[in-house]
């Protein structure tokens, strides 16, 4: 019994060390998403270049990546090249443009043409991975999605359900995990369309 007591501090020390050591490798930005397995929140946002209103229903049918980005965000610009490669491989990527708050006190006001020019220039320079971009001027969908900053990427399935929430950039190191999920969704979609065709 006394011997056992003698080992308790040692065991506690080891447990504490393991706990703290594992903490060294955890990413403080990853604290789980509240939106996984839930439907994409309802929205009606204009397409950035044409101004055409799009809703969550319009985007359904195929799985896609919803990428939150802005020309003001360096990490987003850095990932444009890799995302463009993914688009060339057939990945469907839709952009959700993050407009930073404007301070009227400093004479800042929203200027759509300037923004469109800026986006065109940036995409011509770095590559254009997007089918189209949604413009979220008031950050309403961005807020409903629990976005904490840019870039963030959501994987949405063909029914409009959120299947993954990735914080930070997508790069060749972290893409394989998302790619596997995306591929699984593609085969799922193919199976359901085939079923529907067979039923006819």
């Amino acid at each position, binding site marked *: 019994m006394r011997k056992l007591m003698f080992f308790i501090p040692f065991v506690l020390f080891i447990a504490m060390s393991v706990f703290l050591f594992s903490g060294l490798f955890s990413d*403080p930005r990853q*604290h*789980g*998403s*509240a*939106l996984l397995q839930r439907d994409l929140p309802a929205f009606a946002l204009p397409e950035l270049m044409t101004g055409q209103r799009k809703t969550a229903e319009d985007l359904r049918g195929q799985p896609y990546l919803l990428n939150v980005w802005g020309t003001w965000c360096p990490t987003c610009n850095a990932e444009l090249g890799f995302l463009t490669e993914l688009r060339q491989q057939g990945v469907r990527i839709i952009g959700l443009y993050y407009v*930073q*708050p404007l301070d009227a006190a400093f004479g800042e006001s929203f200027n759509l043409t300037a923004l469109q020019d800026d986006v065109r220039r940036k995409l011509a320079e770095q590559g254009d991975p997007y089918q189209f971009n949604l413009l979220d001027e008031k*950050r309403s969908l961005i*807020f*409903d*999605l*629990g*976005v*904490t*900053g840019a870039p963030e990427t959501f994987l949405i399935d063909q029914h409009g359900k959120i299947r993954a929430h990735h914080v930070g950039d997508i790069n060749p190191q972290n893409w394989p995990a998302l790619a596997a999920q995306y591929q699984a969704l593609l085969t799922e979609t193919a199976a359901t369309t085939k079923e529907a065709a067979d039923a006819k």
Partner: protein
Amino acid sequence: MQSKFSGRWLTPLHSALLLCAGLLLCTGLSLPSQAAEELLQFQSAQQQALFRELTAELRCPKCQNQNIADSNAVVAVDMRQKTYQLVQQGQNKQQVLDYMKQRYGEFVHYQPPVQWSTIWLWLLPAALLTSMFVFMFRKDKTNAAPQLQQPQLDSELQAIIDEVSAPGSTQSPPQGRSNPS
């Protein structure tokens, strides 16, 4: 002669001055956020109190360990604004918290929920305190016990005393003491 500023006695004074300057700086820095909040108009003092309480309890999801009242990250500004709107609409504390948790998860509230994964936060301190008390009382007992009954040691000591103080003892008394006889 020593210069006026090199004396050792000035060091505590210097540190006190530095502390005062630091405190002034801190209060000065916290002024802008208060000023920004004063621009918001509330329908009642209760709503204002609720807004203050919520912005202090809601955690900024972007920055490490700041509440949304303290942070000026875009997401914190948006959350403050949303909190203000919801409070203005007459929603109560729980409704606003649920609204935020639905979007940003449990992480966003500084009060963690009681779950199997978080139960340790309450159990561990209680267990630690209990084990400390148990340890303390047990130690008390084990320390007290030998003092009460040591018949063996007592008789041994008595034997030595008898031997030394016995008249005609062959043994010499301990060094450094004068012989009473």
